[in-house]
C-alpha cells in the first residue's frame, strides 16, 4: 500500500501578467523519487518553491502529506495560514538550494543543528549527536568545525543536505543541487542523494543530470512553458520520448 506524499492539482502561478505555471498536476508517492527536467525558465524551480510555500500560488491546490499547503479550507473558502502554521508545515519538507545557502557565520555542525535546537526543541546534546551522525552520513565528519567558506562547493552542498535532513523531513526538495558545482565535485553530491533515495526518502529533484535521473528516478517529468509536456518512467521519457519538444530538449542536453 503506497501513500501519496505530494498531490499537486493544476497549480498556477504568475508574477504580474507573466504566467509561470499554467496548471501543473502531479503526484508523488511515499518513497518515490521524481526528477523534473526542462529548459531554463520553464517554471520547474518555481514549482518546487511552491511546494513548500516559499512562493504562494495563484490557482490550484497543493497537498503535502495530506495537508493543504499555505491555506486552510473551510467549505469553499480559503483562509491564509498564520506564519507559524506555515513554518510548521515547512518543517517536514527539507529543501536544498542551487547556491547551497549555508549560514556563513556558523560552522558546518552549527548549520546542521541550528533548526533542530531552535525550532524543533531538541536538546543541544542530542542535536550535536544527530548533527555529527548526519555529517558522517554525507562524508564530512571531519569538517564539523569548518566554516562554509573553508569548504568546497560540493562539501557545502553536502552540509546543506545534512542540514535539511536534521529536521527529519518526510519529503526532500532539491533545486538544481549540482548546477553551481565544478564538474569534478558533482559526483559526491549525487552519491549522497542516491544513498538517500535508496534509504527510502521521498524526493523531488529539479536537475540537468540526466544520468542521475535515469539511474535513480522512479518518474521523470518534462516541463516546458509552465506545463507538463511528458511524464513517465526514465526509460519512457528519456529514452523514448513521444513529444517533439521533449526530443528537442534532450537532443540539446545529452
Amino acid at each position, binding site marked *: 500500500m503506497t501513500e501519496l506524499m505530494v498531490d499537486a492539482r493544476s497549480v498556477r502561478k504568475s508574477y504580474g501578467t507573466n504566467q509561470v505555471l499554467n496548471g501543473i498536476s502531479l503526484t508523488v508517492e511515499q518513497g518515490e523519487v521524481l526528477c523534473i527536467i526542462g529548459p531554463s525558465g520553464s517554471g520547474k524551480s518555481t514549482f518546487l518553491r511552491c511546494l513548500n510555500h516559499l512562493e504562494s500560488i495563484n490557482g490550484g491546490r497543493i497537498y503535502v502529506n495530506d495537508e493543504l499547503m499555505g491555506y486552510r479550507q473551510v467549505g469553499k473558502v480559503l483562509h491564509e495560514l498564520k*506564519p507559524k502554521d506555515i*513554518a510548521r508545515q*515547512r518543517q517536514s519538507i527539507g529543501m536544498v*538550494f542551487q547556491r547551497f545557502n549555508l*549560514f556563513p*557565520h556558523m560552522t558546518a555542525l552549527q548549520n546542521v543543528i541550528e533548526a533542530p535546537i531552535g525550532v524543533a526543541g531538541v536538546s543541544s546534546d542530542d542535536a550535536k549527536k544527530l548533527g555529527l551522525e548526519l555529517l558522517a552520513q554525507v562524508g564530512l565528519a571531519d569538517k564539523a568545525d569548518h*566554516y562554509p*567558506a*573553508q569548504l568546497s562547493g560540493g562539501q557545502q552542498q553536502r552540509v546543506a543536505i545534512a542540514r535539511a535532513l536534521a*529536521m527529519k523531513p518526510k519529503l526532500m526538495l532539491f533545486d538544481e543541487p549540482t548546477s553551481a558545482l565544478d564538474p569534478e565535485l558533482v559526483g559526491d553530491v549525487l552519491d549522497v542523494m542516491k544513498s538517500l533515495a535508496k534509504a527510502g526518502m521521498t524526493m523531488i529533484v529539479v536537475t540537468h543530470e540526466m544520468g542521475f535521473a535515469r539511474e535513480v528516478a522512479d518518474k521523470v517529468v518534462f516541463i516546458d512553458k509552465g506545463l507538463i509536456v511528458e511524464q513517465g518512467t526514465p526509460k519512457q521519457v528519456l529514452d523514448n520520448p513521444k513529444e517533439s519538444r521533449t526530443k528537442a530538449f534532450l537532443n540539446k542536453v545529452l
Partner: protein
Amino acid sequence: MADATDYSDDVVAVPLRHPARWIFGGLAALLLLSFIYAVASAKSIQYELVAKFLFDHRILEGMVVTLYVTVICMVCGATLATLLAIMKLSENPIQRWLATGFIEFFRGTPLLLQIVFWGYLGIIFPQLVLGVPYTDIVFLSGDTSDLIPALVAGIIALSLNEAAYSAEIVRAGILAVDGGQVEAAKSLGMSSSYTMRKIVLPQAMRVIIPPMGNEFIGMLKNTSLLQLIAVAELYTAASTISSANLAQIELLIVSGFWYLVMTTVLGFPQRALEKRYGRGFESVGGRAAPRAFKVGRR
C-alpha cells in the same frame, strides 16, 4: 626541467625606488614640526595650567559622566535603531510609516534643538502624569523637572537622535544579507523573528559595526552639547573651570586631549567586535584579502 629544489631562478629583484614618497614625507614632517613649534612657543598658552588641570578631579569626574552617557545612549540608540530598521522593512504599512516618520523627524531637526527641547520640557509640561486615561489609575506623577532631570533629558535627546541615524545603518546591514539566507531559514521552519535574530542580524553586524564605530565616536563628542542644559560632563567641567580662571584655551586643550584619548581607546573594542562577527567570512573579505595586494620577498 627545473626541479623544486633548484633556487637559481628565484626572483630576487632590486625593489622599485619611490623618490616621491621621500619628498612628500619630508614636506609633511616639516609642516608638522613647524606647527608644533608654533603652538609650543605660543606665549599666550600657559602650559603649566594645562598640566595642572589635566588631572583635576572635576575634569576626571566629567570624563566619567561623558563615558557613561555615551555608552547608555549608544545602547539605547542602537536597540531602538534595530527596532526601527525592522519596522521600516516590515510588510505592515503602519509600522513602516511610524518608523519613517520617526526617522524623518529626528534627522530633520538639529540635535542642539532637540537637547534644549528635552532639557526645558518642564516649561511646556510642568507636571507629568503616567496612568490610564479617563480613570483614576496613576502610576507616576510629579514635577517634570524632578522626573526628568537634565542628565535624563540629555540621555533621551541623544538616544532618540542616535536611533534615527543608526536605523538606516542597521537597515543597510539587513539589506546586505543575501536573500537566500532567509529562504534557507524559512525552508527549515524558522519563524521570521527567529530568522532575524539568529541568521540575518549576526550577518548584518559585519556591515553595521564599522559605521556604528563612527556613530560611537560622534556620540562621544556630541555629549559636549549637553553643556547647554548643564549636565556635568567633560566639556561642561572644563568650561566651568575656565569661566572662573579665564584660561579658556588651556582648558580646551585639556578637554580636547581627553576626547582624543577616549576616541582612540574606543577603537579597540570595535576591532574585537569586527573580528567576532567576521568569523566565517575571512576568505571573502576579511584578513585573507589584503594579502593579495602585498608584494614580498621570500
